[in-house]
């Protein structure tokens, strides 16, 4: 290509066309995204609420109804209305209105991105009775086994989170163990091929349990009022 031709191709007269095309299409794209967002917002919100609802009853086996509690000024009380994004404690009750346990959300860094999980605690027996993954971007087929693997889910039948004598911290830290080497009730049996993801779960459990278990145990009677 010789010089005049090149100049013609990149010449100024076209710049208005370029700006027009980029700005016009940019505007059109923005409109398209915003309208899809608006259109799907309510459906997505509802879907997410359904997922949370399903997860709550899964991590609290036997629960049939639930009530939401929050901690306000160090006191546990029932949530009235929509709340302002305080940490929510979902108490689940069985058919006889007895407390099955308390579910709460927890999260932490996984292999790819933050993992959001829901944990079910039994404050009376001081054990974790359920775990469900709410949102994760772990590798499909490997890291996402933390959601499906039945052997891994067995960890959460009765994971020990007993408090120390003064009730302010855990007696035993929740620790990660390689697959098949779990020997104590407070250890987490990992998944082969998903070591980092299952280690991340152990860390999230430890952080959430050491923070929340003292609160849950101290207020275990208050959660019983439905």
């Amino acid at each position: 290509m010789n010089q005049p031709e090149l100049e013609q191709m990149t010449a100024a007269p076209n710049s208005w066309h370029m700006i027009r095309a980029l700005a016009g299409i940019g505007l059109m794209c923005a409109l398209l995204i915003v309208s899809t967002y608006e259109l799907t917002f309510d459906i997505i919100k509802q879907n997410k609420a359904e997922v949370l609802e399903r997860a709550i009853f899964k991590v609290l086996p036997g629960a049939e109804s639930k009530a939401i509690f929050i901690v306000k000024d160090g006191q546990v009380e029932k949530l009235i209305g929509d709340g302002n994004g305080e940490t929510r404690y979902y108490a689940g009750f069985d058919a006889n209105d007895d407390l099955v346990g308390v579910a709460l959300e927890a999260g932490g860094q996984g292999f790819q991105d933050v993992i959001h999980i829901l944990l079910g605690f039994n404050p009376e027996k001081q054990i974790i009775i359920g775990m469900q993954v709410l949102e994760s971007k772990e590798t499909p087929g490997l890291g996402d086994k933390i959601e499906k693997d039945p052997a891994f889910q067995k960890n959460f039948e009765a994971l020990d989170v007993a408090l120390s004598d003064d009730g302010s911290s855990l007696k035993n830290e929740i620790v990660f163990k390689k697959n098949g080497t779990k020997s104590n009730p407070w250890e987490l049996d990992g998944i082969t091929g998903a070591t980092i993801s299952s280690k991340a779960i152990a860390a999230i459990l430890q952080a959430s349990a050491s923070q929340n278990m003292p609160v849950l145990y101290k207020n275990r009677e208050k959660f019983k009022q439905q």
Partner: protein
Amino acid sequence: MDTNTFIKGLWKDNPVFVQVLGMCPTLAVTNSATNAMAMGLATAFVLIMSSTLVSLLRNFIPKQVRIATFILIIATFVTVAEYLIQAISIDIHKALGAFIALIVVNCVILGRAEAFASKNSVGKSILDAAGMGVGFTFALLCLGAVREILGSGTFFEYQVFGHGYEPWVLMILPGGGFFTLGAWLLLFNYMKERKAAKMQEISA
């Protein structure tokens, strides 16, 4: 209707097996048939929508800024697809995770926009995109099926082998993706060569 425009994407110009494009999602998400199917359909959706729009605007877009505009259009439809998938099913969205955003950089889509949609009528572009989309989904399913059956012993999460089957875990790891892709490419090239040899025989 120009059926050839549609059919060439399925077989003769299959984006994965013949053009060897879009290798990142091909290798990354095909460790189960369900993931492969969902990824294929999401890509096909973005492909069809962006080809339509590119073709509609082909006389409005100056040559110098065409790549930037194409990427803008593709990225828009990927975002739209992400919201739609979340609205349809949070579970599918969870399964595809990080890979939805990666549809933007799938070169099959930019390739079709540049090589076909920007030079052809809207109808033809839609046909071409649909053919390529179906071909891409088909190729991903080929890989996903083999890897899931060998690597997990299941197909679309249904048990294929008895419980005594020891899964060949390597197949769902990245290495298995390369092995499976290599095997399929070998098969396709072998068939192509045999066909070429036959043609030569006939003409000779």
